[in-house]
Each structure stands twice: as structure tokens, then as C-alpha cells.
């Protein structure tokens, strides 16, 4: 089932094509529709292998995508949300908006599917940049102020995430998430708690869970309706 990677590759390819394509909106809609249909096709396939190999190298040496029931549910949610937001957009947008949107779609798909810790970090950065670009799309007072705050906060938190990943590689010598999960009980308790603290500090700030989302509320109330 290596073809599950099309969920990430096709939107990214569409991003580049959108740079010199006149009918960007139609193309974006087609790509989102393709993703949705492909997701439904993947879900209906029974007897899937659990792992999609990238680059021909078996895990834990290469990067891989993992298909579980949970990740199938989440790619369905992500792509459905993408399709709905494509249908809701009715204002005229520049082509850059659609490029950023496609990158965000690909990043969210990859974030759900990936089975490699450093790959997760890169997808996280990708979605950070895409979200910041969407926040500051209108270029007025609120959006530029909120955009810069989000970028600074998430950069600091992703630095913590990167330190945590480095410590995991230093102690366990692997980056594959399944491999790490198998070896995690080898760690001593203080080291394990430090690593967990760093990684959670990184992830929680970036996905705006409750205590870390104070800066975000105003944006939702003032800015999000204008984005549509």
C-alpha cells in the first residue's frame, strides 16, 4: 500500500503547478476531491498492510507511513474538513492563498500518517508556516500582530521538540516511532521524564490545546470569519 503517499505528494505537486496556472481554484478543488475519494478508497480496502515504505528501506532505517484504524479515521476527517472549507470559500482569492492551502492539506495528511519522529517535526513546521501564512493573509493590524506572535511562540516550542528528538536519538539511537515505543522502558526515570516534558511542551503549544491558546481566541472571534 505504498500508494498512500499520493495523499501527500499530489497536493505538494499541485502547489508548484499552481504557480503558473491560471485556473488555480478549480485545480485546488479537483485535488481536494481526489484526496477525499482516494481516502475513501483506502478505507474500503480490506487487508491493508500496516506500513507504507518510502525510499525502499525497511523501518527503522527508512521513513515510513503507518496505517492504523485511528489514522484512517483521522485522514478521513482531515480530507473532509479540507473539502468542506473548499466549498465554503466564495470570495475571490489570490493564487498564493490556494498554494498555501494545498501545503496545509498535505502537511495535515502527513502529520496524521507519519511513523518517523523527525518527519513529524518537519510536517509540524510545514503546517506552522502554512497556518501563519493563512493567518496573516489579510495583512491588517490584527492579522500581522497575531501572525508574528504565533510564529515566535511556535518556533520556540518547536525548538523544545527538536531538543527532545535529539535526546531520544542520543539515548535510544533510533527515530522510528514504533521502535522508540518498544525501547522506551530501557530509559532511566529522570531522563524519560525530561524527554516527555520537552516533547509535550513542544507539541501542546503548537496545536493550541486549552492552557496554551490564550493568544488564539481573539483571532477566532475577529479574524476567522474574514478568512472565508
Amino acid at each position: 500500500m505504498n500508494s498512500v503517499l499520493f495523499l501527500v505528494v499530489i497536493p505538494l505537486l499541485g502547489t508548484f503547478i499552481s504557480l503558473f496556472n491560471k485556473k488555480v481554484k478549480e485545480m485546488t478543488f479537483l485535488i481536494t476531491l481526489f484526496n477525499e475519494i482516494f481516502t475513501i478508497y483506502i478505507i474500503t480496502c480490506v487487508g491493508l498492510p500496516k506500513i507504507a515504505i518510502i525510499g525502499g528501506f525497511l523501518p527503522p532505517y527508512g521513513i515510513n507511513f503507518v496505517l492504523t484504524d485511528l489514522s484512517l479515521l483521522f485522514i478521513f476527517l482531515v480530507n473532509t474538513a479540507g473539502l468542506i472549507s473548499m466549498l465554503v470559500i466564495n470570495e475571490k482569492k489570490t493564487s498564493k492563498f490556494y498554494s498555501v492551502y494545498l501545503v496545509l492539506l498535505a502537511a495535515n495528511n502527513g502529520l496524521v500518517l507519519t511513523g518517523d519522529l523527525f518527519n513529524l517535526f518537519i510536517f509540524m513546521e510545514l503546517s506552522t508556516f502554512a497556518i501563519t501564512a493563512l493567518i496573516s493573509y489579510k495583512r491588517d493590524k490584527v492579522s500581522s500582530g497575531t501572525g508574528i506572535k504565533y510564529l515566535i511562540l511556535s518556533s520556540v516550542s518547536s525548538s523544545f521538540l527538536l531538543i527532545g528528538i535529539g535526546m531520544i536519538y542520543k539515548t535510544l539511537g533510533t527515530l522510528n516511532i514504533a521502535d522508540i515505543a518498544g525501547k522506551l522502558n530501557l530509559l532511566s526515570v529522570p531522563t524519560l521524564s525530561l524527554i516527555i516534558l520537552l516533547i509535550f511542551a513542544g507539541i501542546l503549544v503548537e496545536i493550541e490545546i486549552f492552557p496554551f491558546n490564550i493568544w488564539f481566541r481573539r483571532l477566532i472571534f475577529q479574524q476567522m470569519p474574514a478568512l472565508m
Partner: protein
Amino acid sequence: MSLTNLFLISSASLIFVGLYGVLTKKNIVRILLSLNIIETGINLLLVAFGYVEGGIAPIITSSESIANLTKMVDPVPQALVLTSIVIGLGTTAFALGLTINYYKNLGTVSISKEEEEKINE
């Protein structure tokens, strides 16, 4: 003090200096400079994690270096750091563009309580 400890201590102190800057400064450009210092410190820290005392660079130049493969420093953190340097450049460029836009809208480059109120109007 061994070389490994020296590298670990210097990179950790860079990270802390940068964190101090991010926490206390109000000027956005200055915050971004501190952020870059943190990123440099993290890159040093990751490469120092892979350093082996008396190791050699992970490049095969002749037949002798193949005999010494176990003495090489760990190449994986170096590959990760290559990625993270480029991500740091992207962050810097995007944040500076946002800063210029912020300056154009508000006439200042500082984030503080007064500017918050100005935004809310």
C-alpha cells in the same frame, strides 16, 4: 574537561542566553535574533550528541577510512541539523517579513501591552 563536555556546556549556555532574550525583550527584531541564537545552540547540541572522542569525519576518502568505520562520528545528527538550519532560515525570513508588515500597520516594532490595546481597537 573533555571536548564532548565542552561542546555540551557551550551549546546549552547558548540556548539559555537565547531563552533569556526571548523572555525579556520587547523589540521583535531582537526577539528574532535571540530565536536565532537558540537555533544555533540547538544545532550545536545535536551535533555534540553525535560526537565521539577522537572521531573522524564521516566521509570516505580512501581505503583506510573504510577500515575505521566504527571510529566515525555519528552522521545522523548532522543530517538532521542540515535540515534544521534551513528551517531556521525560513523562520527568520518569514518572521522578518511579518515584522515589516507589523511596522507598517502600527508604526512600531515592539510587542507590549500598549500595542495590544492598539490592535484591539
